[in-house]
C-alpha cells in the first residue's frame, strides 16, 4: 500500500495529466452533436450574451448587404403573392401546402467557416418555438440544422460539418444526390456516388429533396462546379458550389415542419428490413 502511494506521488504529474486527458475525451465523446444539449443549456445563455454583444457591434458593417438581401427577398415574395392571387388554383391545396412549413426569422450571432466542424448560433431559443432538428435556411439556400436550444439562443451544425449530409435533388431530372463537406474550401461541397448514367454537367442546379423533413423541398443548395468522370467506375463524383456564402450570414429562417412528427411516427412503424 505504501509502495503504491509512493508510486502515485512520484508520478503524480503523469497521473494528473492522464486524468485530465480522460475527462477531455469523455467530454468530446459525450458531446458529438447528438447529445450536446446539456453543455449549451448550462453555458449557452452566458456565451450567447457575449456573442450577441459582439454581433451587435459587427452587424453595423453588414447593414448594407443585409438590407439589399432583405429587399430582394421582399420583391421576390411580392411577385409570388401577385402570381398567387391572379391564378386562383385549388384553394384547398394552397392551404395544405402553406400550413406544413412555418418560418421563424432569426439573426446569426456567431458563426465560423474555418474549422473542420463548424457551428453557428442564433438569437432565438425555445421561447420563440425553436426545437432541435429544425432546418435553417436563407433566401439564398440552406444553412444548417439546429442541434441545441436554450431559452433565448440556439446553436446548430452548419452545412460545413463532417456530420452534415444533405439530401439533394438535381433540378433538371429529379435524381437524388448526397452533399457533404470535405473540410477544405468552404465554398465547395462534395457530390459523391452519383450513378454514372445520371446526366450532370457543371452549372446544373441542386435543390433540397425534402426527403429528410428538415428542409422544405426545393430550396437551392448550389450549382455543380465540376464533375469527375472516371469511366471504369460505376459512380462519378464532383463538387458543388454553395449558393450561400457561409462567411456572410446575418439573417436566417428556422423552418418548422408541422407534419414532421406524423411522418416520423409512420417511419417508426415501418419494419426495418
Amino acid at each position: 500500500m505504501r509502495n503504491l502511494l509512493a508510486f502515485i506521488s512520484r508520478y503524480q504529474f503523469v497521473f494528473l495529466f492522464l486524468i485530465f486527458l480522460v475527462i477531455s475525451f469523455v467530454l468530446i465523446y459525450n458531446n458529438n452533436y447528438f447529445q450536446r444539449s446539456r453543455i449549451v443549456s448550462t453555458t449557452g445563455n452566458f456565451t450567447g450574451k457575449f456573442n450577441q454583444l459582439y454581433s451587435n457591434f459587427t452587424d453595423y458593417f453588414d447593414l448594407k448587404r443585409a438590407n439589399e438581401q432583405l429587399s430582394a427577398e421582399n420583391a421576390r415574395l411580392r411577385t409570388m403573392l401577385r402570381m398567387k392571387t391572379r391564378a386562383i388554383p385549388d384553394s384547398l391545396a394552397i392551404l395544405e401546402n402553406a400550413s406544413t412549413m412555418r418560418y421563424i426569422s432569426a439573426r446569426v450571432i456567431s458563426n465560423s467557416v474555418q474549422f473542420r466542424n463548424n457551428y453557428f448560433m442564433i438569437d432565438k431559443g425555445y421561447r420563440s418555438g425553436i426545437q432541435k432538428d429544425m432546418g435553417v435556411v436563407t433566401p439564398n439556400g440552406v444553412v444548417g440544422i439546429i442541434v441545441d436550444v436554450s431559452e433565448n439562443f440556439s446553436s446548430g451544425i452548419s452545412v460545413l460539418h463532417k456530420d452534415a449530409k444533405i439530401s439533394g435533388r438535381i433540378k433538371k431530372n429529379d435524381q437524388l444526390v448526397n452533399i457533404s463537406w470535405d473540410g477544405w474550401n468552404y465554398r465547395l461541397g462534395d457530390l459523391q456516388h452519383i450513378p454514372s448514367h445520371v446526366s450532370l454537367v457543371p452549372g446544373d442546379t441542386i435543390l433540397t429533396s425534402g426527403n429528410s423533413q428538415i428542409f422544405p423541398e426545393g430550396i437551392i443548395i448550389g450549382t455543380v462546379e465540376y464533375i469527375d468522370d472516371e469511366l471504369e467506375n460505376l459512380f462519378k463524383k464532383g463538387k458543388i458550389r454553395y449558393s450561400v456564402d457561409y462567411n456572410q450570414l446575418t439573417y436566417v429562417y428556422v423552418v418548422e415542419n408541422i407534419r414532421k412528427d406524423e411522418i416520423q411516427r409512420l417511419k417508426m412503424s415501418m419494419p426495418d428490413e
Partner: protein
Amino acid sequence: MNRKLFGNIARFILLVFAQVYIFNKIQITGFINPQVYVLFILMLPFQISGFWLLSLGFLTGLSVDFFQHTPGMHAAAAVFLAYARPGIIRLVGRKDDLEPWQYPNVRDSGALWFLAYTLILTFFHHTFLFFLEVFRFSEFLQTMLKILTNTALTTIIIMVIQFLFFSRRTD
C-alpha cells in the same frame, strides 16, 4: 507576488476573449486559425507546481471550448501542452540566474530562447488539436498543412505580442 497573480488573471481573460473574438474570426483561405490563447500557458511561472500547471491548462482549453461548441477538444490539447511544457523547458535549456517566480518572456529569457520554446510547444499543441478535430488520418496531408501554417502564424503573432508588451523592462 500579488501583481504577478493579477497579471496572470488578466492575461487569461484577455487571451481567451481575443482568441474567440479576434483570432477565430481571421479567415484567409478557410483553414487559417491561429491559437494564440496558448500564450497564457506558455507564460505561467517557471516554478509553478505540476498540479496548477495542468489544472490551468485544462481550464484555459475548456473556456475556449465553451465559446466554440467543441467541449473537450481544446481542453485536451491545452492539457497536452501543459504536460509537455516542463520537458521542453529542460530541452531548450533553462538559464540558472532566473528568480523562481519569473515566467518565460522575451525580456528575461531572450528572443531566441523564447522563439524555440514557443515554436516547439505550439507545434505539439496544434498537432494534437487539429488531428483531434478531424479525428481521422485519411485527411493526413491536408491536416499536416493546416498544422504547419497555423503553427507558423501562431508563433509569429505570439512573438509580436511579446515584442509589443513584454520587451520593455517594467520594474
